């Protein structure tokens, strides 16, 4: 009578999800994000024409990036340390539960929260874009812009849900890994944000690596570029939402991107489970 690991993972994930959505922080962040995306409506006063759609999309995706990053780091750290500090982890791990199940269950719970957040935000963005695009299409002065039909690729927004989800999932996995060995919530949040910045700027190291002559330095920079995932790779919003012949993302490239995120998430979860295995609760 031990049940399966999978059943326990889902239980822990479901509980983590419930705990997160009942926190004020999550609700406030969702309301702020909705307000920010909805406020894109005010850009119509500038009368940008079809460029307005791009502006709305950039603004909306910026809101998702900002609040999604905060959510990924803060909620992951909060949900992990609430278990440790409130000693609910003590009760849970005194049950027939493996530590890797606990860590993976926590991650899956956060992943569900992120999925709900990203889906809601991008659905809202798609609705705002559709509504505004339909309006603009009725104006004769923009008829040329819409000669070939709609500009916005709404299927691309659906694809963007998953690429954003994997990006934030990766960030949550980084945070969980740091939390697995650190002692405080604050330390975890600060270090995770630092790592996020390194991951965002990692492409600079990649560029300099290709210019280096010294093979040792090249090796070190190459190693570092592998150590930190390149989050810039996930900035595919424009390619997916406003694809052109020059700027587009093939299906192969898209699947490769999701695979890249999934591999890093799996490795980080493995490392988290390994460090958490010997942690004294």
């Amino acid at each position, binding site marked *: *009578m*031990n049940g399966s690991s999978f*059943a326990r993972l889902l239980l*822990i994930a479901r509980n983590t999800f419930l*705990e997160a959505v009942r926190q004020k922080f999550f609700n406030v962040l969702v309301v702020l994000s909705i307000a920010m995306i909805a406020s894109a409506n005010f850009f119509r006063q500038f009368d940008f024409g079809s460029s307005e759609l791009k502006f709305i999309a950039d603004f909306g995706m910026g809101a998702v990036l900002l609040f999604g990053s905060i959510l990924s780091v803060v909620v992951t750290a909060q949900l992990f340390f609430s278990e440790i500090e409130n000693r*609910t982890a003590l009760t849970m*791990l005194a049950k*027939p539960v*493996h530590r890797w199940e606990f860590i993976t269950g926590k991650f899956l719970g956060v992943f569900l929260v992120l999925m709900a957040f990203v889906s809601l935000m991008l659905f809202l963005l798609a609705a705002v874009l559709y509504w505004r695009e339909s309006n603009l299409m009725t104006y004769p002065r923009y008829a040329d812009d819409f000669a070939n039909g709609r500009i916005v690729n709404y299927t691309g927004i659906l694809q963007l849900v998953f690429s954003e989800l994997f990006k934030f999932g990766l960030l949550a996995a980084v945070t969980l890994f740091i939390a697995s060995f650190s002692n405080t919530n604050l330390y975890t949040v600060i270090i995770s944000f630092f790592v996020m910045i390194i991951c965002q700027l990692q492409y600079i190291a990649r560029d300099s690596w290709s210019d280096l002559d010294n093979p040792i330095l090249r090796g070190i920079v190459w190693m570092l570029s592998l150590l930190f995932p390149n989050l810039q790779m996930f900035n595919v919003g424009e390619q997916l939402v406003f694809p052109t012949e020059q700027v587009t993302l093939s299906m192969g490239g898209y699947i490769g991107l999701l695979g890249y995120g999934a591999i890093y998430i799996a490795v980080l979860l493995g490392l988290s489970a390994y460090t958490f295995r010997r942690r*004294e609760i």
Partner: protein
Amino acid sequence: MSEPAIRIKNLTKDFRIGVRGVKLRAVDNVSLEIGDNQIFGLLGPNGCGKSTTMKILLGLLEPTKGECSIYGINSHSVKSRLNVGFLPEAPYFYKFLSGRELVRFYARVCGVPKSEISDRTEDVLTLVSMQNAAHRRVGTYSKGMLQRIGIAQAVVHDPKLIVLDEPTAGVDPIGSHAIAELIIALKERGKTVMLCSHLLAQVEGLCDRVAIMSRGKLVLEGGVDELLEKEDQRSLIIRDFNPQAQAEIEAVLAKYGSKLDKVEAPRISLDRLFLENTDGAAIGSGQDVNDKEDA
């Protein structure tokens, strides 16, 4: 010969407390065996290593040396915890769940078959007298109710061994009494109970065996009766005592080489007096009042 419920062998646990490799020895070469279907009390002052020993036993800490097993399975193995229920000191549970949801959650974590979860949940809620408050969120519970719902989650998967860390800490005498009765009920159901407590009077009345720890070492272990009994002394409780009879009794005792040491009126404990004069049935579960009734 069947395996004991708990076997602890040469257990030592050091905690690193400084950067220069300074260590604190919390548990020092402790060996202990606890047989099946006993109530066992692990006693000692704060910081003597009781909770550390419990945590190692439950796989929450790694021992520095030695080993522990539960019904023959090493504590390292998650399987050893299939037969264990644990109530931590000052338990804190997911506040957003109701008492019933919490017990169901832990039943599922422990792999209780789906078809049995509802029956088991109601059974243990009845056992801990929490069925009337089970719909309320855990965040609204008093300390005594938290302890009782904690015991419910510890026994919902019908474990053979139940480990209780300070089960009556911060609970009023009525609640303590209810928990003590619960522990006795668990023993009657064939369970082994290991408990840590500072309420020595309660431990004395409850436990079959006790062990005392001091500075990480096990200093004393044995049956409660054999440890506390003064072997060469007996007390007689006399109803309708007549002081004039005392001289004759002393003479009879002297004839057999015995001596009357003290004559005193037996007293009931303050706990008992408190319980007899308070409503023990209303064990802190409160009452639901709706707004209309209030008005």
